[in-house]
Structure formats: structure tokens, C-alpha cells
């Protein structure tokens, strides 16, 4: 999707330049931005903050929060663990939340299933997360885990939906620019009908 919209944008930009409406400097800015986006990822990601085990745990957790489904791939594919590692590398408070939270998760998993989180069975992993994710299961002794899960859930969601995969998943169609702003008639008709206001 993004390739097409970039091309559309550049076409529109070209037209604007022909009409004298945009400076060469501005055009260069956009070209640079597009070039940045096209840079290939350089090999496998090396975590800046997490140990190999912590990073693996984070990957498993991320894909449990936003898994692949029939519409799109999951959080790992969308770069959520890299995003979290990078932000932790720039913020020690956040790093503490994650290393502490991942450690808590392992210890809790070990206690319950005699296996660290990544080695627990998928239904065991989900059983543990269910204790953290639903208020009906909340218990005071789970507080550190609940707090950590809320952080991870929010940031995995942010990472996934700011990736090309997540942006395509929700169906965002913009960031291309248009000559004239128009709204599809069927969209308006649909909303009016459903609202009872039309």
C-alpha cells in the first residue's frame, strides 16, 4: 500500500512543481523522506537493552498481544520488540519497567508451570496473561504483573499500528495528497442510514 501512495504523492508533487506551486527545496525534502523509508533493514536486530532471553520473551509476549490473523501479520513482524528495545535504550525508567516485568513474568510462570514464560505451553502463557489482562481476575499480589502488562499492551499496540502492516490492517488510505477533497457518497449514505439521522 505504502509504495503506491508514495508514488501517487510524488506524481502529485510533480504536477504541483509544473504549475510552479512548490519549491525544488520542498520537493527535495519529500524525496529524502521517501528515500529514508526505502532503506533496507540491515540484518537481524541486535537488542540494545535486553538479553537474548529477555528479548525472546518480549517477542512471544508481543505476538500474544497482537497475533497474526487472517487480515495481517503480528506484532513481531511489525517491529514491536525493536521499538520497545529502542525506547528502553533511551529511557532507564522504561527499561526498568520492561526488564522487571519480564523477570516477574518468568518467575510467575516458573511458579505456576515449572517453566519460564517462553517455555510454557501456549495455553499456559495465555492463562497467565488472562490473570493480568482482565479486571475480574485482578489480585493485589498480581499488581506488578498487571502494571507491566498494561505498559506492554499499550506499546505493542502503538508499535503495530504505526507500522506499514498495522496501517494497512486498519485501512488508513491517506497521506497521499489530493487535488480536490471528496467524500464517497456511499460512505455518507451508509452512516446516515445507520444513525437514523438521514
Amino acid at each position: 500500500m505504502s509504495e503506491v501512495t508514495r508514488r501517487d504523492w510524488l506524481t502529485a508533487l510533480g504536477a504541483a512543481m509544473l504549475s510552479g506551486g512548490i519549491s525544488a527545496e520542498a520537493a527535495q525534502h519529500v524525496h529524502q523522506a521517501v528515500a529514508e523509508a526505502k532503506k533496507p533493514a540491515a540484518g537481524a536486530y541486535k537488542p540494545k537493552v535486553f538479553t537474548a532471553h529477555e528479548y525472546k520473551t518480549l517477542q512471544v509476549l508481543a505476538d500474544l498481544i497482537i497475533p497474526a490473523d487472517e487480515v495481517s501479520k503480528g506484532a513481531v513482524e511489525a517491529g514491536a520488540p525493536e521499538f520497545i528495545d529502542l525506547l528502553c535504550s533511551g529511557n532507564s525508567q522504561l527499561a526498568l519497567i520492561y526488564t522487571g516485568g519480564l523477570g516477574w513474568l518468568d518467575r510467575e510462570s516458573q511458579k505456576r508451570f515449572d517453566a519460564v514464560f517462553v517455555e510454557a505451553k501456549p495455553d499456559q502463557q495465555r492463562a497467565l496473561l488472562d490473570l493480568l489482562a482482565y479486571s475480574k481476575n485482578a489480585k493485589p499480589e498480581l499488581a506488578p504483573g498487571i502494571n507491566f502488562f498494561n505498559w506492554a499492551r499499550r506499546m505493542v499496540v502503538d508499535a503495530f499500528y504505526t507500522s506499514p502492516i498495522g496501517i494497512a490492517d486498519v485501512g488508513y488510505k491517506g497521506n497521499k495528497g489530493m487535488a480536490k477533497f471528496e467524500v464517497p457518497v456511499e460512505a455518507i449514505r451508509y452512516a446516515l442510514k445507520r444513525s437514523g439521522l438521514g
Partner: protein
Amino acid sequence: MAQVRRSAPVYDVVVIGSGAGGGTVVQVLTKLGVNVALLEAGGMLNPAKDFKEHMWPYQVPHRGAGEAAESYFGRKDFGFFSAVNGWWEIEGEPYTTAPGSSFRWFRSRILGGRTNHYGRISLRFADYDFKPYSRDGLGTDWPISYEDVAPYYDKVEEFIGVFGSKEGIRSAPDGIFHTPPPPRAHEVLIQKACAKLNIPCISSRLSVITRPINGRAACHYCGQCGRGCVTASKYSSSQVQILPALKSGKLTIITNAMARELITNDEGLVTAVSYIDKTTRTEKQIRCRTVVLAASACESARLLLNSKSSRHPNGLANSSGVVGRYLTDTTGYSMSGHIPALVGMLKHDTDGVDGGHVYMPWWLWDKQKEAGFPRGYHIEVGGGYNMPSIGSFNRTIQRHEGYGASLKAKIREEYGTFVSFAGRGEMIPNEHSYCEIDPDVVDQWGIPVLRFHFKWSDYERAQVKHMEQTFTEIIEIMGGTVVTKQKDISVPGEIIHELGTVRMGDDPKTSALNKYCQAHDVKNLFVADAAPFVSNPDKNPTLTICALAWRTAEYLAEELRKGNV
């Protein structure tokens, strides 16, 4: 010690501040052939380099959250992608608040100031807005009327470009408009709901051009005005007025120049501006025939109060004692709702112009007694299929517990199904709200800072209560439910419409400036930001700042020509 070169040039006009007011003065004066020097406390703007328009979040590894995760720990700006701008706190430039008061003072330190990112809402004041005291006995009448300002509203709208529709509503006078973009789908629903409540819901009036003018391209509807516009299709004083004025050869821009004090001679006239050159941390002076303060309402008041001398013991242009007084901000209240009717709608590009394509002007201006509070508000709307960014789905993840495939499906379903409403209302100036020099605190250059006193009155609280009721009604008529609502009236200063601190008036005993925004006490001193405002109507101030600045600049040029200043 100040480094003053005696041989230094004397500028006809030194303008302090490069936002909406300073930009307009620079544009008008250079066009009239006047030699102008512009002091800006921040740096030079390079739109092509500084603006992050059209970037996707994934083009930076931190996705816009900031390299130190700022989005999760309290930002100090409007976000990574936002135009370079400013914030309520600036390193090394403190201010204080008096016990029992809260006030947040937004400053911008860059060529163009807040216009690089501002909301672009461009509303004329109504005729009655200039005569509030005559209307209901509250506040003070302006020394000018709508008829005095109308020709300048025309000039500003024609020059900067504003889109809108002609409606014939007294609370929202029509202007000279570009064709507005049509309402988005959710905005059509809002219009239908408002019709049931007899609330007008009309095209927004934003300083965005929809046909090319003055070498600027028409809007390309990417919805990213707040990032700064590389095609200059939205108004910013930097791109639309100041950088083009350089071609006149009449303009000298001095950046990183923090004005400290106005220097006066034995006759009490301003002869120079003392400023800190921030790059060398040294004091310099620039000589002038006249000076225009456009540093923002509170910064201009601060500069006058800090320009004390034996001749002006209360500060310059302050024999009345009103400088710093009558500080107001716009009231603010927001709510969002989930609208099930929007679920499953055809996904389409709703970017359009950044901000609502519709708004609701105040509709009870002739039924103010029924409303139960003396002054009105307008409503701004939000919604649509916006570009996903950090925090975009917070409402959904707060509404629904869980994770996994069900969460993913919920986010997909609720994307673009929220609408939001923001009320922006008039505050009546009161004796408890003002700024003064804090005797104990200086900024990093040794310049005494401002101390703020502020109180909302029951008038504003009752108005905000009405906003809450109205927004709830609109959401419910749309078949929706309220999702988030602000707990209380906005914190003073948060709407960033602070103004009124160097007010104009006919009587030198009760005002600092005359009807041309020229100081009663100092004839070669003018003010061209929102400080001269006598009231703070329910219309965003920028268009009126530009109109008054234009009027002041023309008057100033004429006075220079006649040799009166």
C-alpha cells in the same frame, strides 16, 4: 556591559516578535518602503528542512514516540512530527504563579512563532464583541468598533487566504473566503444532529488556501497542517509574510535576540532596544525611530514592566498601571464519543485539511439570559480515519480489556468511529487575573520573569457546564455514547489565547494604548500582538491580531511619513 556601536544604523521600525502580529507588521511596512529590523528570540526557520510533513510514523525507529520515549512520560512539545514550536515550559526561561493561582504560559522561540503550527481557525469578532460593556454591563468596550476593523479583516483574509462559507450569522460575520472543503462523513452526521438541536453547524473558517495565491500552492489535503506545510498552503507568518518580505530589501532579521528592555531618552521616547544575543550571551542594542512590540501579550507586558526608569517607575507606557492587568485565556472543555453508525463504513481518505471541516458558531447570542451565563462559545469537532500514530488507539484499549485476536478485531472495528468536541468560550476580564514582575526570580539571562495570578469566575464555570450538556446531547442524538470527558474547565493558559495585558482605550488613565495601539505615554511605541485586546471573545484571536497589526502598521507608516514619530 552592553555593546553599543554608536555608528550602528537607526531603523525606522524595530519589531519585536515574528508571530502573527510581527509578521503582519513586517509585511505591511516593508511593502510601504519602511526600513524594518525584526528581532526574534528563537532561531531561523527553514521549512524545507524543519517540517516533517508527509512522513510515515515508521520512517523513524521510535515511530514518533521520541528517542527517550517522551510520548509515554510527558512530552515537552506537541510531538515529534509537529512543526517546531514551543511549549508551556522552556528550559532556562521560568515564570512563577502566585499562591492559589495556576497559569501555564506557552512560548514559542522560532521565526513565525506559534503560527507555524497553530490551529488556523480564522474567525472575525462579531459587532457586539467590540462593545461588551454596552451589551451587558460586564467588561469594557473597545475604543474601536467592528466597522473600524472590517476593512482590515478583508485585507488580511485576502492576503493570507481563509476558506469558509457565507452564512449571514451575526455571531460569525462573513468574510472573503476561498471555497471550503466539503464535510467528512462523520461531520455530516454532526450537522444532522445539530440541526435537531437548532445549533448551526457550518463550514470551518481556516487560514488554508484552496486555490493558488501569491505564489503559494492550493492545499493538497494531506491533513498535516500542524506539522508545518512545505507548500505554504496554510498561513504562517514565517512563510507567508516574513521570508517573502526579505525580497523587498527593507527587512533585517535578527534571530536569537531576546529583548530585555526598551531604552528611552530624556523626552521619554524609545531610542533603542536592548537585547541578549543568545548565541554569545552578550547584551546588544539596536537603535530605532519607533518600536513595535509583538512578542506575545505577556512577553510584551513583561518587556514594558522591565523597562523601568526614574521617568517611568512603573515601567514604560504604564502611567495608568494597567500593564499586565486584564489577562484572559479562552475557556476550554472537550469530550469524545463512540458512534456505532460509523462502524463498517467504507474506509476512505479523510485527511482533508488538518482540523474539522465544520464548526458551530455561538447560537444563543440573542438568548444569553436563557443560557444562564453572559458570554458564548463555539464548538470545534474532530474525527475521521486519521493516520495511525502513537496513542491513536488508546480509547479502544481503555474501553476493551484483553489481548490477542479479539483486541485486534476491536481496534479494526473502532478505527475512525470516534468523534470529539471542543468548546472554546469567552472569559470576562477580572481583577484577580493578571501578570506582574516577580521580584525574586530572573531567567537565564538575568531578565526578571513574570508572576501570574489567575481565577476563573462562575461565569466561565457555568459556560463550561453548558458545553458538557450540549456535547452529550449531540453525541446521544448521533446514537453514540460518551467515551472521554474533561473533568473540569481547562487550566488557564492551556488554550494559548492569553491576551489583554496592554489594553487599548480612549482614556490614558484606564488604558495603555490608544485606538491605533500606540502608547498614550510614548508616541513612538506601538503594540501589535494580542496584548491590546480589550476582551477575549469566543473567536480565536489570530485573525484579529493580524487585522489590528495591519491597521497599526498603516497608521505607523503614515505617522513616520508625516514626521510625527
